[in-house]
């Protein structure tokens, strides 16, 4: 590791990917996306930029909705949610995501929890960031076994969709017209060849793939101070994990 851990890099990447948004919703079990959103909020505040609103779903303290579980979806359909994170047991090269299971439906070989709100949010949130820490050909497959939500659509009202794919190994952008990912950078400690070997789908890549931009000193200071403090409230175990990894790397 360099002067930062892999998780710190992912958090900084998330903050960069969210730059410019007003409101982001994150799941109660998504600490890295939440940390990235908190980092952006702290950075904007320092720079005197507009405040970023973060809705932590399922949290009693960090959720300002008062109209029950349907409000997130109503709020999204009204165009008031700028960014959201989705993952998947499988993600393919056309950005289709599978949250249901492997093998033949319905008697899946491996059954995951289910679609949740993906078959709605993926269509309507302008900036959906696909996030999956595990980067393997088991996750990134040529074709998903079940389409919980498609990466692109034609002939329907769809203001939203995939903006980027962030993994523990690399950062990809997505071209909706060509329905194809492009490798933007590989994280410190990984090469373009590592990414190739662990990705089951085809994607575009330059001859020389740069290393993912390292977080600068100001970002790391914010992340290790204020943001870790804020994380301790909603994600106490994750905040401890970050502190522990930092100590080990130091």
């Amino acid at each position, binding site marked *: 590791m360099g002067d930062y851990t892999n998780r710190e890099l992912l958090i900084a990447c998330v903050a960069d990917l969210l730059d410019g948004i007003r409101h982001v919703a994150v799941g109660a079990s998504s600490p890295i996306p939440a940390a990235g959103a908190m980092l952006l909020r702290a950075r904007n505040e320092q720079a005197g930029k507009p405040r970023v609103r973060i809705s932590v779903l399922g949290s009693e303290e960090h959720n300002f909705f008062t109209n029950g579980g349907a409000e997130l979806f109503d709020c999204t359909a009204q165009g008031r949610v700028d960014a959201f994170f989705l993952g998947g047991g499988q993600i393919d090269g056309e950005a289709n995501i599978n949250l249901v299971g492997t093998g033949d439906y*319905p008697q*899946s070989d491996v059954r995951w929890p*289910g*679609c949740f709100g993906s078959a709605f949010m993926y*269509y*309507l949130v302008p900036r959906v960031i696909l996030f999956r820490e595990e980067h393997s050909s088991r996750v990134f497959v040529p074709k998903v076994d079940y389409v919980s939500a498609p990466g692109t659509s034609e002939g329907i009202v769809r203001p939203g969709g995939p903006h980027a794919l962030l993994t523990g190994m690399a950062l990809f952008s997505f071209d909706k017209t060509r329905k194809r990912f492009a490798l933007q950078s590989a994280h410190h400690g990984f090469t373009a060849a590592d990414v190739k070997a662990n990705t089951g789908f085809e994607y575009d890549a330059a001859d020389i793939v740069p290393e993912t931009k390292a977080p600068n000193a100001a970002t790391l200071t914010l992340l290790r101070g204020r943001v870790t403090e804020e994380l301790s409230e909603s994600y106490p175990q994750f905040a401890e994990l970050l502190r522990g990894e930092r100590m080990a790397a130091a």
Partner: protein
Amino acid sequence: MGEIVSLEELAAEVRPGCKLAVPADYCGVAMAATAAIIANRPDRLHVVCVPVTGMQGDMLIGEGLVGVLETSAVTLGEAGGAPRFQDAVKKGSFRLMDATCPAVHSGLIAAQKGVPFLPIRGIIGSDLLKTRADWKIIDNPFAKGDPIVVVPAIQPDVAIFHAPEADRLGNVRIGRRRELVTMAQAAKATIVTVERISETSLLATEDSAAGVLPALYVTKIAVAPRGAWPLGLWGEYAVDSAEIARYAAMAKTPEGFAAYMDGFARRQREAA
């Protein structure tokens, strides 16, 4: 309306083959009542999860009481996948109606409004549409070139949840968990367990009345202290993560599940 009864009498409202609406884990899950329902063994239940379920749904599945499962997800949260659900899916033990969260809300809202269906964005191009023959695509009658999904009204026979308190008149405090209002108004009958009974009317002040489900929509109420355990109850107590993890580990096999369920009703009461 809003009659206060014993837990056993409340549980008897859930009859074989009925369509039962249950809330998500963060909303107040009636676990004490679930134990009482399991004791009655009503089978072939059509469980509508609003919009997802966890331990409650997994237990009903493990007990073989579910005929149809309509849900957007089943998960034990931090404790991982729901083992009895996963096993039953593999075996094809029940009819699975996979959904997506806002579609479940929309179906209930349609029933709440007494209309046959509601349009909803998204979904087109998802494999959900291949197996949800009850969801259809129509052309927006007000604009050209705008196909949109419609989902039918969901009218549960019974809605069940757990809340902090009810008053003697049968009004129930639901705070900002407004989906509980939708569930109750959509359902033919609503049964509620509560931590305690308030001796003053919950409709007495504007402040308290704002977060109340009126007795008009409540069929029966039973007192069940710590009635959501091992799950948590908003504003009252947190989820017992160690207990959920214990369940997740034991329920991996049918035998382990049976061992966990043996005495669950008693342990539930003792948790109070």
